[in-house]
């Protein structure tokens, strides 16, 4: 070893026993990685590689209209993934998001049809979403039912409710309404409203998680719920709040679905979304155990999934392969996470 003695910075005046002090002297590269996060960085790299691969096969991929297609394609998924991120940060899970979205879609269209007011239809849908979320939370918190089981049950039950009220078929016609049309086709400053709604919700939740005490406490509860309890945090309030927020966000996704398709959709467009949503959040770096993850990671993962889906489409790959790709992605994302945690491979994982 012939490294000169000058390697520690001369400004470093920490005592020699201060081992951690050495970490303040980081190279630019490692500072950059620390700032962006290894998870986000690998997502960006994956995104670039994927885009380059698809673009090299079909130059149309990079065209503005195709970008817009990708954006509009992921907007509903993205909105749901942002809500799911909050749930998963707390250490929970919501499998019923697709059913909630379907319920809100039908409710918004039916109420609009009977009342003639799009805004009223949307408001009722949002209230229904909040109630659906509240029911999830009450089952989990006071019924002491594991979140996966609870929302698996409501996943089926809410789907049943939608099919009951809609008779299993599309409801109403919203294509002629200005507000719904604005949501589906409008643009603000050249950006489609659909994408804008996704970005605004992501920005709001990001702000909540990063800059407010609510967000901080969500990370603390997900990171160590005993410590959070002993610190006097009202954990139940946060869990209930998060599931209700998820319900409201799912309702917004349902409204966007109604706007896009021009009618209330009980199943089409929302069925199977839960898998994509959970894949996106896990891929974005959210720990299934809670306490770890970010909205930026989730948004990047949503874009990555959108690009993948779009790529497979424009390259003419059989759509069944997309399901396989989706499932594979979820498994890979979680395997990577667990590897990083360094858990031993014995019995069932926790």
């Amino acid at each position, binding site marked *: 070893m012939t490294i000169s003695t000058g390697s520690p910075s001369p400004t470093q005046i920490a005592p020699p026993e201060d081992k951690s002090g050495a970490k303040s002297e980081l190279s630019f590269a490692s500072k950059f990685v620390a700032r962006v996060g290894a998870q986000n960085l690998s997502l960006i790299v994956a995104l670039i590689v994927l885009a380059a691969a698809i673009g090299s096969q079909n130059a149309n991929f990079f065209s503005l209209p195709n970008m817009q297609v990708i954006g509009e394609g992921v907007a509903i998924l993205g909105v749901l993934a942002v809500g799911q991120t909050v749930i998963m940060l707390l250490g929970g899970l919501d499998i019923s998001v697709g059913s909630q979205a379907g319920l809100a879609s039908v409710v918004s269209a039916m109420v609009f049809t009977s009342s003639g007011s799009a805004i009223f239809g949307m408001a009722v849908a949002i209230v229904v979403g909040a109630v659906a979320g509240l029911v999830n939370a009450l089952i989990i918190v006071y019924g002491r039912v594991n979140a996966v089981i609870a929302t698996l049950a409501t996943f089926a039950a809410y789907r049943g409710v939608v099919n009951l009220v809609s008779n299993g078929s599309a409801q109403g016609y919203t294509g002629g309404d200005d507000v719904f049309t604005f949501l589906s086709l409008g643009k603000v400053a050249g950006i489609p409203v659909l994408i804008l709604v996704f970005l605004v919700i992501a920005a709001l939740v990001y702000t909540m998680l990063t800059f407010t005490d609510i967000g901080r406490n969500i990370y603390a509860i997900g*990171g160590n719920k005993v410590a*959070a309890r002993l*610190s006097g945090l009202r954990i139940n309030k946060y869990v209930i709040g998060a599931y209700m927020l998820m319900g409201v966000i799912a309702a917004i996704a349902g409204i966007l679905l109604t706007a896009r398709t021009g009618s209330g959709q009980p199943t089409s467009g929302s069925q199977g979304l839960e898998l994509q949503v959970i894949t996106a959040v896990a891929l974005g770096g959210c720990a299934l155990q809670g306490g770890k993850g970010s909205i930026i990671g989730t948004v990047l993962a949503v874009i990555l999934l959108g690009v993948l889906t779009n790529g497979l489409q424009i390259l003419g790959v059989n759509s069944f392969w997309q399901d396989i790709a989706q499932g594979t992605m979820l498994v890979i994302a979680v395997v990577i996470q667990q590897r990083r945690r360094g858990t031993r491979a014995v019995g069932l994982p926790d």
Partner: protein
Amino acid sequence: MNSTQHRDAEQPEQNSHGDASPVLQMRGITKSFGPIRALSGVDLDVRAGEVLAVMGENGAGKSTILKILSGEHAPSSGSINLEGEDRTFSSPFEAKAAGIRVIYQEPEILDDVSVAENVFIGSIPRHARFVSRHEVIAETQAVIDRLGFSSAISPTTLGSNLSPAQRQLVEILRALKDDSVAVIAFDEPTSSLSEHEVEALFAFIARLRASGTAVIYVSHRMKEIAEIADRVAVLRDGQSVFASLMSDTDESEMVRNMVGRDVFGAFDRDHTEAGEVVLEVKELTTADVSNISFHVRAGEVVAFSGLVGAGRTELAKALAGDAEILSGTISIAGEVKKLRSPIDAVRAGIGLAPEERKTEALVMTRSIKENISLVVLNSLTRARFVRRGLESGLVADYMKRLRVRAGSMDQEVKTLSGGNQQKVVVARWLARKPKVLILDEPTRGVDVGAKADIYRIIGELAAEGIAVVVISNELIEVIGLADRILVMRGGEIVGEVARADATEQNVLTLAISDSLDLPTNSGNVALEGTS
């Protein structure tokens, strides 16, 4: 290194004379866990047909030596000689095959299956893959009869219906179901047994002894040891410090050898005049502690001493609002507080730095800053937005004051050493300006330098008028820090020692002595004779 072993040829019955050479010789056993040395050069001999009592303070290394014997831990150095052959056990399975059994304090019992299946767990007799329920029960009954427990347990009882004594019995049946046992060790077997169950256990141990098995008996209870042991070995700070025939020693000599640890840190602090009573606990009873009454004045450090399991941590949890209070009151500055949850305790001005730092206090994946500001965060916000400048200033102040050594306040707490992590937990509560601060094992897993820091901090907090409660297993720490020492045993306070009178010997005697035994303490054996 010897190569092949043939355990089947080695029947314990061969060693039936007490004065034969030792069946088990452990020599120079050293074990380090990272930087912490749990054992340094422990020697232990057990002969066939004798009961060796192993004694020592909390943390003296008793459990570690048992775990090395049972193959659960590999020793860092040293040798184990069993029946004349040097052995190394790389797994509990190997130790078991060699004829070593360790009966732990809290056996693992499956609640939903029968005693028989619990006994034969992992080795249920089967034909192809089919298990005969009859056969398992019959074989278990045979083991029960052979060991003389026919009246105490039935092979068909479900695990969840077993009493603590029966659970221990299941563990014994498991250990002795195949008969090639050379050495059997009991780790504080009587802690959950009633008096006549203890007698039954002792009768059983006497039979083991008579059959020529070497028995190691780990316990704190003087009277039991006087009754059952032939020889005694004392561990202190991971070293063998004393060994003697029981007939050649007495209680005070044993206790004297258990105490007397080296004093390293300085405990000097100004013991200022204590102020008003801040914390007053009256006849507090929870599921784990009963009839607890004490008070702590402003500026006072009150330490709780006692053995592991005496109920100190459970008391701390109750004071932090994390246990259901069945009766009794807790008052802060003269005002009775109803503590239904930790929220109430935090509001009342009680802070707890729990024993399990990593699992109960710290959010390991978050930064030092977020961990320190956790309980005061809502006072640092404007319209729910955290005022980052205010927060950073506050965190920096406390990090400086408590000398938290870290690159930056944004570093994840999991990257910190144990001592610095503990300082983060203390800083969290100081930021809240508590009236009462409870520190449960504040120096556990903390290096010597940081220990001295924590002692200094405790002194400063008291000087500022905080009522400080310290729970510690280290006698020297308790004596050095406290103005008063309360000793707990079996969920109750059994004595108080003032600073001036405190010696390791009298505190430890209170913690382990059976002479002051209370009616609820179930392990009392009616045997007089030791002082």
